[in-house]
């Protein structure tokens, strides 16, 4: 890794969710969820649609105010990190783009406020394989290209932690294979990766650990191996079956 001034020596970061709860009016979307994301590994954050994954991640990143509980990155709240995008790179579901901005300009806007040079924009465009479309307006991008542009935004600051909400949405099979390789290489460089999905086949060959939630409640948190003999799918279905009928 080269040592330009804006890069910092990589540190291993811990991510901890502590008793996160969120009520939307009378509905409890997330109920007392606590888990720790092991550093330098890939953790799958799994649950059916509407189980509270996105709300949990948005709370952790200061976008949604928790009813109670806190998420800590190396002991700090996200909002207390001086240059947050240099520590935590996030891609959230339905992250948006101005349709008239080019892919490169979208990344330049984030790069400037993140405090990384435009040369990093070109590096990231290569990583997410959008180099040839960089000067096209985002409105011409396919869903998969937008997803890769969003990933590019998360990678810009070379963060120690990656939080990716359904990054596989819109990717075709080759895109999925590319994504798995990308996540693997990020973890191999010592990054902590938390990736949410409702499609088990997307993640089962990739993750080291799993966190499973259903109806806003934590069902399981631990290594993939500790699930034992059962396949991830069997375990998932058993844990997320309605009213415990499995």
């Amino acid at each position, binding site marked *: 890794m080269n040592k330009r001034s804006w890069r910092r020596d990589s540190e291993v970061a811990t991510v901890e969710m502590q008793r996160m709860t969120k009520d939307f009016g009378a509905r409890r979307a997330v109920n007392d969820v606590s888990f720790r994301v092991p550093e330098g590994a890939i953790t799958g954050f799994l649950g059916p649609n509407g189980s509270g994954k996105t709300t949990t991640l948005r709370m952790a990143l200061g976008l949604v105010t928790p009813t109670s509980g806190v998420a800590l990155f190396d002991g700090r709240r996200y909002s207390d*990190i001086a*240059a947050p*995008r240099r520590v935590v790179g996030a891609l959230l579901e339905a992250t948006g783009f101005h349709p008239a*901005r080019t892919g490169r300009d979208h990344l330049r806007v984030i790069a400037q*406020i993140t405090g990384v040079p435009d040369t990093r924009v070109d590096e990231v465009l290569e990583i997410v394989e959008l180099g040839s479309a960089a000067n096209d307006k985002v409105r011409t991008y396919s869903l998969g290209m937008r997803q890769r542009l969003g990933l590019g*935004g998360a990678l810009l600051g070379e963060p120690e932690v990656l939080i990716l909400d359904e990054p596989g949405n819109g990717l075709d099979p080759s895109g999925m294979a590319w994504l798995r390789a990308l996540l693997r290489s990020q973890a191999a460089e010592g990054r902590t990766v938390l990736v949410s999905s409702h499609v088990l086949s997307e993640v089962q060959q990739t993750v080291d650990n799993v966190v499973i939630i259903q109806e806003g409640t934590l069902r399981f948190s631990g290594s993939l191996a500790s699930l034992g003999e059962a396949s991830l799918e069997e375990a998932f279905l058993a844990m997320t079956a309605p009213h415990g009928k499995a």
Partner: protein
Amino acid sequence: MTMTGNLRNEVLKLRTTRTPWLFLGISQVLVVIGISGVYVSGADPYDPQTALTALAHVGLVSILSLVMGILGVAGEYRYKTITDTYLATPSRGKVVAAKVLVYSAFGAVLSIASTVTALITTLAWLKAKDVPMPASAGDLWQTAAGCVVWNICFAAVGVGVGALVRNLAGAVAGALLWIAVVEGLVAQLIGDNAKWLAFRSGVALEGLDSPSIAVLPQWGGGLMLVAYAGAFVAVALATSMRRDVT
């Protein structure tokens, strides 16, 4: 992250879309059409008030400044780029403050450019009619300055409205409906007290002699609009702080 970083980032966001240039172009066209209308419709070209009325079309451009301010915030919600914005700057007050300053500056640029166009157009019509400029330089300056203040304040009001309403179409429609219809209806109900209303305060800022409607003195109109801008920005800051970004 410094405030300067946020200011520069808002400028970069503006520069990487075409909307500001489009609005700059539209405002010049509006001013030329409006002023030509004054002279074509047979107003007395020797009357100093005719020249000032022509120049005062720069005040009407403030509607574009208002919409631009709304776009600056509600547009980020519309295209969901607000997620990236708040991820980079979790301190939302800083984001709103930077937008108020940058969009107010845009209002200034828009209206100063429109003032130049307005003066050239007015002088061209006077030359065509072989009439010397009847208005004093002092009066022209006063009207021009008032119109620039109107634009700056309306841009800031726009940022406030955009942050408050967040729905782009709703915010733009609501603001335009107020100016085109509602303020007029309210004015009929409250008689001379209508001089305290927002658009009427802008008309006061034009500094024309005896307009057909009740208005505050020019300085009073200026103070009222600064107060409106301050109130909208304060409400925007208060509501942006804890609202969930989903």
